[in-house]
C-alpha cells in the first residue's frame, strides 16, 4: 500500500516544478518515454525538464531517503538506541571532510560519471566508518558503546580538520557549506544508475536481517542465548548500513533527520516487528525525502532551499512532539 503511495507521489512530483508544464503534457511525456516513442508536439525543453531534470531527481531522492531510513532503523536496532542515525559511525563528518578536500584540491577527477566531490565524499565516509570500526573492535567482538564513542571522537577530529582546511581556502567556504547542507539540484541519470545497484544490494542485505534484529532489540545476551550469531549480525548490519549511508551522502550531501525520524514514525504506525518495519521504513523514507525535496525546489519560485533545511524544519518539531508523547 505504501508502495502505491510512493509511486503516486513520484508521478505527482513529476508534475510540479518552477516551470509550469500542464499535467497532460507530463503524462504524455512519461508515457512516450516508457514506450520509447517521441512527442514532437511538446516543447523540447519541457521534455528535457520532465525526463532529465525532474525524474532523476525524484528517483534519486526516493532512493536516498529509503537508504537513510532503512540504515537508521537497523542501526537503532543494533545499538538499542533510539537516537542512532545512519551517520553515527562518522559517515557524515567523513563525507564532509572528503568533500571539502575534493573542493579545495580543485581536481577534475570524476569516476563513473560522478564528480570529484562525490567520489571524495564517498571515500571519506567509507574510510571513516572503517576507521571507527577498527578502533572499536576488540578481537572478535565489537562493543556498541565503543563504536559510539569512537564515532564521536573521530567526528570531532575530522571537524577540526575541515575547519583547518577552510582556514587556508577561505574562498571555497561558501561552496563547502552549500554541499554540507545537502541538495539534489542538478541530479542526473548517471547518478541514479551508479547508486542504484549498491543501494539495492545493501537494502537486500539489511532486509534479510529482520528476524535477527528483532532478537537483538531484546538485548545482546538474550539474543545470544536464543541462538542468534550476535557478532556476525552486528558486523553485517554495520557494514551494510554504513555502505548505504556513504552512497547516500556522496550524491546528495548530508541530509539529517530522515534516518532518525522515519524509523520512529513507522514504529508508531506499524509496530516494532522488524519484518514489517524494515520494508515500511524504506518506502516511508523514500516518501519523506521525496516530499521534502519537492518542497525544497518548489516552495519559493526560483529559490532552491537546501533539502537538509526542509527535513530539519519538518523533522525537528515532529521529533520534539514524539519526545513529549513518549514521556
Amino acid at each position, binding site marked *: 500500500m505504501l508502495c502505491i503511495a510512493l509511486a503516486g507521489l513520484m508521478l505527482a512530483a513529476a508534475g510540479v516544478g518552477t516551470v509550469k508544464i500542464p499535467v497532460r503534457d507530463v503524462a504524455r511525456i512519461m508515457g512516450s518515454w516508457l514506450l520509447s516513442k517521441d512527442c514532437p508536439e511538446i516543447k523540447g*525543453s519541457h521534455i*528535457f525538464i520532465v525526463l532529465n*531534470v525532474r525524474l532523476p531527481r525524484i528517483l534519486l531522492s526516493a532512493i536516498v531517503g529509503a537508504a537513510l531510513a532503512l540504515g537508521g532503523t537497523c542501526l537503532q536496532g543494533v545499538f538499542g538506541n533510539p537516537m542512532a542515525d545512519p551517520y553515527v559511525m562518522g559517515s557524515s563528518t567523513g563525507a564532509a571532510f572528503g568533500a571539502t578536500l575534493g573542493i579545495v584540491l580543485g581536481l577534475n577527477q570524476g569516476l563513473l560519471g560522478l564528480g570529484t566531490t562525490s567520489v571524495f565524499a564517498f571515500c571519506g565516509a567509507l574510510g571513516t566508518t572503517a576507521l571507527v570500526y577498527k578502533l572499536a573492535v576488540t578481537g572478535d567482538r565489537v562493543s556498541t558503546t565503543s563504536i559510539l564513542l569512537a564515532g564521536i571522537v573521530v567526528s570531532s577530529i575530522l571537524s577540526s580538520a575541515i575547519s583547518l582546511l577552510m582556514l*587556508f581556502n*577561505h574562498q571555497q567556504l561558501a561552496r563547502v557549506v*552549500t554541499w554540507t547542507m545537502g541538495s539534489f539540484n542538478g541530479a542526473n541519470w548517471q547518478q541514479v544508475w551508479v547508486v542504484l545497484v549498491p543501494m539495492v544490494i545493501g537494502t537486500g542485505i539489511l532486509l534479510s536481517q529482520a528476524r535477527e534484529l528483532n532478537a537483538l532489540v531484546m538485548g545482546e545476551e538474550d539474543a545470544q542465548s536464543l541462538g542468534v550469531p550476535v557478532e556476525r549480525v552486528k558486523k553485517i548490519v554495520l557494514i551494510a548500513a554504513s555502505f548505504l549511508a556513504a552512497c547516500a551522502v556522496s550524491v546528495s550531501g548530508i541530509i539529517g533527520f530522515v534516518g532518525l525520524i522515519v524509523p520512529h514514525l513507522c514504529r508508531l504506525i506499524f509496530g516494532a516487528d522488524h519484518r514489517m518495519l524494515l520494508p515500511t521504513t524504506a518506502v516511508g523514507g523514500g516518501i519523506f525525502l521525496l516530499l521534502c525535496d519537492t518542497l525544497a525546489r518548489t516552495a519559493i519560485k*526560483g*529559490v532552491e532551499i537546501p533539502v537538509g533545511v526542509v527535513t530539519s524544519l519538518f523533522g525537528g518539531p515532529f521529533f520534539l512532539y514524539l519526545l513529549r508523547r513518549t514521556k
Partner: protein
Amino acid sequence: MNRKLLIPLIMLLVFSTVAFGAEQLVSIDGREYLFDVKFIEKVPFVNAEHFKELGLTVKRADEAVILANAEVEIRFVLESNQVQVNDLALTLAERAFTQEEKTYVPLSFVLETINYQVSFDGTHITALSNPEVVYPLKTQEGYVIGEDVKSVISLAPGVTEKLFALGVGDRIKGRTTYCNYPAEVGNIPLVGTLDEPDLELMLSLEPDAVIAETHFKEEILKQLKAAGIMTIARKSPEDVSGIYSYMLDLGMLFNKNYEARALVASMKSKAARTEYILQDIPLEDRPTAYYVVGTGQWGEYTAGRDTFISRLIALAGAVNVADDVEGWSYSLERLIEHDPDYIFGNDFNLDTMLANDNYRVLSALTGKNYLVIDQDVIERAAPRALDEGLRVLVGLFHPDRVDRLGF
C-alpha cells in the same frame, strides 16, 4: 659666416624641423607611411585624413569626426574624451582635437579597433594586422558558432557586467541574484543564486549559451550541456591583460568584435595614461596600501600578489603590502608590522576595524588615510575596475595627480 646667408639658413632649419617633426614614419603591415603625427604626452595622434589610405572614410560633422568602413563607425566627439564605436559609447584617456583646420585622433585606438596590433619603440610606430575573425568559428571549448550568440544566461555578476560593457546587455535572458550592475539588470529575470541556480527556469528560457565564472555548481553545468546549451565556464581574470583577452573572447562569441577591440583599446589607453602620470615616482617613494577583503574575529583576508586587485593597486601607483603572500589569507600581526599608508575596503569591514581596539595601532586608520569603497568595483575584474576603480584608487594614493588622468 656671411651674415646675409645666416638668416635664411636659420629659417630653413626652423621650417624643416617643424615640417619633419610633424611627420612620423608609421609601418603598417610592412608598408611604410609618412603620417602627420603629433605626440601629446607620449600619445600619438594622427591626422584623421590619413585613414583614407587604410580604407576608411573620414567625415567631419559639427563637433565630431567620423571614421567608417563597411563594418564599423568610429565617432570621436572633438575636444572631449568620448568616442562611439557603432552603438557602444566609450571614454578614453585622450581627446581628439583640431589644430590648424586639421583633425587629430588617437592613432593606437583607431588602429586597434580595426584589428591591428600596435607597438611603439620610441622612434618607430609599427602596426600589424591581426587575423580576421571569421564565422562560423570554433570556441576554445569546442563549440561552433554560426553567426553569434543571440541569447545568454549569466551565472556570475562579473559576466553580467562584462556583457553590458560590451553592449550586449539586451541579449541576457537570466541573471543571478548577485548580478546588480548596471542598473538595467532590474529588467532581467532572476535564475537563482551562484551555487544553486534554478535549472528548470534556465532551461525554460532556452538560451543559446550560459556563461559562468569561478563559482558554479558542476552538476548544473553538466545538465545544461546535456540539454544542448553552449556552456562556458571561465576563470575570473587575474590581471589586467586577462580582462582584455576575456573581452575579446566575448566579442567573438557575440560578433561584436569591433566593439570589443575598441573597449580593450580604451582600457589600455587609461592604463597607459595612469602609468604615464605616475612614471616619475620611483618604487620606493610609492605609498603602501592594503585592501580589506575580510577582517575581525574570523581572521584577516586580503588580496595577495597573484590577484587582480593587487595588480590594480600597483597600476594605481601604490605598493600592496600583502604582496608577500599568494591567495587571500593574511594575519593581523603582519598587517601591523607593515603598517600600510592607506587602507581601503567596504563599509562593513572598515567599520569593524575602526571599532576594534586591535587595529588602533594602524596609522592609516588613526590618520584618517582610509577609504570606504564599493567592493564590487574593485573585486569584479571587469571594465569598471579600470573605468571607475582606477580613478578612485589614484585619487586615494596620489590626490595631487588625479586631475591629470583625463578620464
